[in-house]
């Protein structure tokens, strides 16, 4: 493994923050080494400085992409922390359906966004909750969008195939049997769920007003890697992208105090969600 020196740490940390928004503590040199060593080697670099220079010069952005993939690959699980999904099932969806339906004879449109969808587990869990709650009741049109900064994550999410370690924690056996098909040593999400969702690449540091307004936004455990300044910018933009009576769900150990006064916290049972003032 290629060792990183203090000067390179500063340089690479800064570069990663520029391209991803992720602020990596420079005391964690092992994290840079374990995640970037193989990227450096794959591109024939003997040092991290060489890698950073090469990545900046590369007009195809291929090196930048592999750095983003290596840095941002985080573990996510199906129904990670049951709270948000119970919240959606028992509070948010019924309220939204109540608020949106019966005004016209048109279908009730509900748009949901998983803003850092990683390899797709969160959005598929949301789709499963909707499927279970509404079965195939006509009259509702759901748009489920997942976005992530990593190309590798987006393509794995789109493929919807998970190994048994990724599947077994968190996912109930009844859901596994019902919504997944055994595929060699892995499990693949069934088409009926796959067809409900869309994934695409998006850097949350960039503007995203083009996506339109959403009724529910999930943005869990991603802003924790940003500086306070970047967190303020992000949640301000999310407030712009949320319908006036929409719902924001963040990670259960995250807080918006001192980050975005436009959101007020509300409690339902053991979970918190946010709405605009």
């Amino acid at each position, binding site marked *: 493994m290629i060792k990183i020196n203090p000067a390179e740490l500063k340089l690479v940390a800064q570069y990663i923050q520029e391209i991803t928004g992720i602020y990596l503590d420079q005391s964690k040199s092992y994290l840079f080494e374990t995640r970037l060593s193989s990227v450096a080697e794959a591109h024939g670099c003997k040092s991290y400085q060489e890698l950073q220079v090469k990545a900046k010069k590369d007009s195809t952005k291929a090196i930048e992409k592999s750095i983003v993939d290596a840095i941002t690959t985080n573990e996510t699980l199906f129904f990670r*922390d049951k709270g948000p999904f119970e919240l959606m099932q028992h509070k948010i969806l019924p309220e939204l359906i109540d608020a949106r339906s019966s005004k016209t004879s048109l279908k009730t449109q509900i748009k949901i966004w998983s803003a850092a969808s990683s390899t797709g587990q969160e959005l598929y869990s949301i789709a499963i909750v909707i499927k279970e709650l509404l079965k195939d009741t006509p009259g509702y049109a759901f748009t489920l969008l997942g976005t992530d900064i990593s190309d590798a994550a987006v393509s794995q999410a789109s493929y919807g195939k998970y190994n*048994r370690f990724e599947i*077994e*924690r968190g996912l109930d056996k009844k859901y596994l049997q019902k919504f997944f098909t055994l595929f*060699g*040593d892995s499990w693949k999400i069934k088409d009926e769920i796959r067809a409900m969702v869309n994934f695409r690449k998006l850097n949350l540091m960039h503007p995203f007003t083009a996506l339109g307004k959403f009724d529910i936004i999930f943005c869990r455990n991603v802003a924790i890697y940003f500086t306070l300044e970047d967190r303020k910018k992000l949640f301000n933009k999310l407030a712009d992208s949320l319908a006036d009576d929409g719902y924001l769900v963040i990670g*259960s*150990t*995250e*807080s*918006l*105090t001192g980050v975005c006064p436009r959101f*007020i*916290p509300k*409690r339902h049972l*053991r*979970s*918190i969600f946010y709405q605009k003032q």
Partner: protein
Amino acid sequence: MKNLSILVVDDDPVIRRLLEQRLKKENYQVQVAEDGYVAEKMLGQQFFDVVLTDLMMPGTLGGIEVLEIAKDINSRTEVVLITAHSSVNSAVEAMKKGAVDYLEKPINFDELFLRLDKIANMQTILRSAQDLQVAMDTTENAASETIQSLEMQVAKMRQTLDEIETILRDDHLADYNKIAKALDLVCES
């Protein structure tokens, strides 16, 4: 005693006895089954870390079936297949179905012990990863309870402050009335 329980499945009594003795000599916890049916029964009764099974056995329950049964009962059980040289292709098929490894006959015991060591190491790592995960979940739950209740308290205090500000800025009220009302709000909160 080594920290690995092994079930040996082989219809050949000589090989079965040989495997049992050599593994016991290495201090593994060993049990034996003479065919797939006995193996199925034993797997249903207790957990084994490793199943070491012959690929070709008489009857409808061969090595592949033992593999499937073991994995179905508990996916943490690792299965190593023993094959004749001529059936290497089926061994590769078995790997696709979730076998961790295969050994060719005649059995090279050094090789077998090496692979068992690897499995033991892997299981230790897996177990400590699971322990860490449980610890992390517990900590996360405790942290989220604290953070969420603080978040609600802060929001409530902010609301109170806003109300106090509105009262204090109210020109229609006399100063002592403003202060009295503001104090009421502070006491309520």
